[in-house]
Each structure stands twice: as C-alpha cells, then as structure tokens.
C-alpha cells in the first residue's frame, strides 16, 4: 500500500505543476518579454543615465543629437526622466499590488471560509467599498494632505482598489469550500487553518495571481491619473508626473511629441504586457477558453473533396 502511494505520488506532482504553470504560448511569451524588459529598464536604467532634472539651454531638441529621446522645454533629458519614471511607477505598482493582495485575500478568502456573520459583514463592507468611486475619493483625500510621500499615495490607491478582487476571491472560495474533498478533510479532523492553507489556498493561486496583475495595472494607471492632475506624491518621478509636466509645458501646442508620447506608450505597453500574462492565467482558471473551440470542431469535419475521396475509396 505504502509503495503504491509513493509511486503514484510522482505523476500527480508533475501534473499539478503543469496545471499551475501556464502553457508557454505566443501571448504569454510576448507578455513576459515586455514586462521583463520594462522592469529591467526601471531597475538598471536610472544607474546608467544622468541627472533627470538637470537643466540645459537646449530647450525642446528633437530625438537624436546626443539625446535619445530629445529634451524637454527646459532642456532636461527625456530618456533619463523616462528611466527614473519607470522605476517610480513600477515601485507604486508593486507596493499597491502587495497591499491589495493582502487586503483582498483577507476580506475575500477569510470571510468566505469562516462563513456566518463574519462573511456577511465582510461581504457587505466589500460591496460598499466597491460602489464608492475610487479616484474621486483619492483626489479628495490627497488634496487635504499637502506633502505626500510615495507610500501614502500607494496606501490610498490600495485602500480604494482592493474591493473588486475581494469579491471575485470570495465567490471562488465559496465554491471551493463546499467541494467534497474539503468536506472530507473537515470530517477527518484537519485543523481549520490547515484546511485553509493546504486544501483551499493552492486552488486560489491562479486567481490570486491574476488579481495581483490587475491591481498592478490599476495602480499604475491610477497613480498616473493622479500625478497628471498634479496630485501625486511630491518630488517623485513617475510616468504620470512626466505627462503632467509635458501637458503644462505646452508640449501639445508646440508639437513636442517626443515629450508626451514615451511615458504614455510605456504605460500602455506595460499594461498590455500584463494583460497578455493575465490571458494565459485566465485560460488555467477557465479551461473552456482554451480547449476545443467551435472553430476547431468545424475543422474536424471533412471538406467536399475529402468526402468525395473517401466515398470513392470505400465504393
């Protein structure tokens, strides 16, 4: 008995690993490559470029001439700014993603697992937070605080954005909680925290991953919007503050596209890359999206020519 279980353990482990890691597709490859490149740029870029705030008397030079992406109105190097802004925006994204993960897992998973009035209260709280519009709340809060640190902005963004994922997680936890194997482990006397951590949580990992990815996109977009309105963290460099200065420096009217296009494009590319990763995670959570499509099924049928051939051969 012991021998059979130990041998049957190996393939199930391999199967499980294959199920948790998404299959390598073109979408996932592009997404991972883009995310990796942008992250690398944010990590290493600031070390290689000069001072992003240094003012020169070379206002609005187009790309080339010693500056890869040209200069701003006051002669600051746009490429150097972009490197520092990438680091700033990614930091916000990661911090908000982490806080959101903790908050949404607590209110979504723990609430649904405990059940009873705790679940009712958590769910009510989540739904109320969900319907209160986030960005206006962030704008109001941040306008009361004159000197904001990056951390404060991150915390405010996280507080206003965790509710959506908490609701998704709650729904999924409820369905996992009532599955037979969880009931079986409960009957066999497993401790509650063990059921939560060992039996339920592994099933939630793909969902948690996709929610974190969403939270990162949302945080970077939210911070960019906030900074663009001039309400971001003071003295920080992000994609949003670059756009804020570009808008205020009349880059649009002056036609200085090299000033306002790169930061926006960076946000768009990073967001798209993360979405591509999310598609692949979605296909694990919902296998129907991946396996035999109607188009595939149509292809199983034979064309007229093939039918004719088949008929001739059988006749």
């Amino acid at each position, binding site marked *: 008995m012991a021998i059979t279980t130990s041998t049957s353990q190996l393939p199930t482990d391999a199967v499980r690993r294959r199920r948790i890691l998404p299959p390598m597709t073109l979408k996932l490859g592009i997404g991972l490559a883009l995310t990796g490149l942008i992250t690398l740029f944010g990590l290493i870029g600031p070390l290689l470029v000069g001072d992003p705030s240094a003012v020169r008397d070379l206002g609005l030079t187009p790309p080339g001439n010693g500056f890869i992406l040209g200069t701003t109105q006051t002669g600051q190097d746009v490429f150097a700014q972009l490197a520092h802004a990438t680091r700033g925006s990614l930091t916000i994204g990661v911090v908000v993603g982490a806080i959101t993960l903790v908050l949404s897992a607590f209110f979504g998973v723990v609430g649904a697992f405990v059940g009873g009035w705790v679940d009712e209260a958590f769910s009510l709280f989540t739904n109320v937070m969900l319907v*209160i519009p986030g*960005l206006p709340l962030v*704008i109001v809060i941040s306008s*009361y605080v004159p000197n904001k640190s990056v951390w404060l902005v991150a915390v405010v963004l996280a507080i206003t954005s965790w509710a959506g994922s908490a609701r998704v997680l709650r729904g999924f936890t409820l369905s996992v909680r009532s599955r037979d194997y969880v009931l079986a482990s409960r009957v066999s006397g497993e401790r509650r925290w063990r059921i939560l951590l060992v039996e339920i949580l592994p099933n939630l990992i793909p969902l948690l991953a996709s929610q974190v990815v969403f939270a990162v996109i949302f945080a970077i977009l939210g911070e960019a919007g906030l900074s663009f309105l001039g309400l971001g963290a003071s003295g920080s460099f992000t994609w949003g503050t670059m756009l804020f200065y570009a808008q205020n420096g009349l880059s649009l009217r002056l036609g200085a596209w090299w000033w306002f296009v790169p930061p926006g494009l960076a946000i768009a590319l990073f967001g798209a890359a993360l979405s591509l990763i999310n598609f692949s995670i979605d296909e694990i959570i919902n296998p129907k999206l991946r396996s035999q499509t109607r188009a595939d099924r149509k292809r199983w049928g034979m064309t007229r020519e093939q039918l004719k051939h088949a008929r001739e051969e059988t006749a």
Partner: protein
Amino acid sequence: MRYLGQKLAFYAVACWAALTLNFLIPRLMPGNPVDLMLSKLATRGPVTPTTRAAIEAMLGTESNVSLWRQYLTYLQQLGSGELGTSIAYFPTPVSTVIGQTLPWTVGLIGLAAVMSFVIGVLLGRAAGWRRGSWVDNLIPFTTMLQSVPYFWLALLLLFLLGSTWPVFPLSGGYDVYSVSPGFSLAFFQSVLYHGALPALTIVLSSIGGWMLGMRNMMVSTLSEDYILTAEAKGLTPRRIRSRYAARNAVLPSISGFAISLGFVVAGSIVTEAVFSYPGIGSALLLAVGNNDYALMQGVFLIITLAVLGANLLVDLLYGVIDPRTRARS
C-alpha cells in the same frame, strides 16, 4: 419582492457609508480646512452666518461640540440641500455649481459609457461566435487600447485631430462665441461637435473590456449542452446566437457595467481636465486647485450618489432580465 427589498437595503447602507465617509475625511485629515475656507471667503466678501454654519457642518469645527452632534448637524444641513458657498465660483452656492455642471457630465459620460457597452458587447458576441475570425483577432488590439490611460489617449487624439489636423475643437463644451445655451439646433450641433472627441476617448479606452468579457462568456456558454441540443434541433444559427448564447452570456457583462461606472466616472474626470469640458470633473479639479473644500466635498458626494443610483438601476434591471436572482433570494 424580497430581491427588491435586499437591494434597497444594501443601497441605503452604501449611501449612509458614503455620507459618513464624506463627513469623516475632512475631520480626520491634518490641518484646519474650515479656517482656511472662511479666511478665503472673507477676502471675497462678507460671510453670512448661514454660510459659516454650512461650512462648519461640512468640514468640522474646532469648537467643543461633540463629534456626534456635528454629525447630526451635518445630516440636517444635507437634508435641507445646503452645501455651503463655493470659493472658486464665489459667491455661487455649491448646489448651483453642481446643478450647472452635472448635466454636461451625465450627458457626456452617460452616452459614451452606454455606447461603449453596446458596441463592445456586440463585437464580443461576434468574436465569441466565430473564434479565430478577424473580429476575434481585434481583441489583443482593443485590450492594448484599454491599458492606455484615458488622459493620454485624450492628449494624443487632441494632438492629432485638434492640432495637427484641426478636425475637432481643442476645448470646451460648446462654441461660447457664436451660440448661446438653449433649445436651439445650433446649440445642439455645437454640443455634439465639442463632445465628439471626449466621447471617442472614453469609448475607445473602455470598449476592450466589454468585448473581452463578452467574448469569454460567449465561448463558455457555447460549450454548454443546451447549445448542442439547440443545434441538433436544427434551429437557425442566428437564433442560437442571439436567443440561446448571447442572452445568457451577456448577464455578467450587465452586472459588470454597474461596477465599471465608478471607473468610467474616474477616468472621465481626467478626460474632462484634458478637454476643459465644463462638467463636474472640471469643477472638482478647480475646487482642488483653489482649496475650495466645500465645493470639493459637495462634488464628491454628488458623484458618489450618482454612481450609487446608477448601480441601483442596473441591479433592478438585472433582477428583471435574470429570473434566477429573484428565485434565489
């Protein structure tokens, strides 16, 4: 009936939470917004006792009145519709400023959000029905558009269609020089012309989500057994597509529409800033720029209540089109 009662109770709680949040934020934040506001108001003209009372009720007082009493006064002031006087638009009352700017925002955002939803769902239906067709291949592109920030798309469109090829106006809600607001054809034309670019921005950047969601639900629904049964019965593909698949696949999108309204409003605040659109988002930003806390709180309250109201409407509609929600509760 029970469904209706539950929904109404939930929105009552949410509404109370919003009011309380609006009450607590200025009191929990550092600094003293009341003195700042009153001194700013005093430079513009005499401050009447009613204005003073309204501002104190909204933003909190330094006096010894207990928080609970302040809360009751605040609710009373709200009940009588008194939101204080705006600094930025001195001496207009906040309620008048909101009354003037709200129709612009509701018109622009309401229309743009509904348009984006309808087009997105129709495209998603087509993409899910024929997987791998050209519509389906649009999806990565529209998702890319979705991760583009609203305001940056607005800047790009403004740069391309406003400055480089001047097809659309650069800013404003209507042509202030040649037409006056009123029920005239010229005014409506001007409003449509000025609203086209902001609306296009909102539609372009939110359509991808609807398309993807609908497409994924459509794919899931099409693999259900009852679709196979319908095919086996020999129903026309059109009937299967719209009555059997899309009818069921659209349900999550509709409940998602309610949730997304908050995000659309958020995005449009920034969009209004780019286009200098005379809506409530611009009023909020002007208030923030001028430390006009009374107007800011008022606008936040109205935006929140509007989103709550829209959510309630969608939820009630959902109860009508999905009988299961009524049966379950």
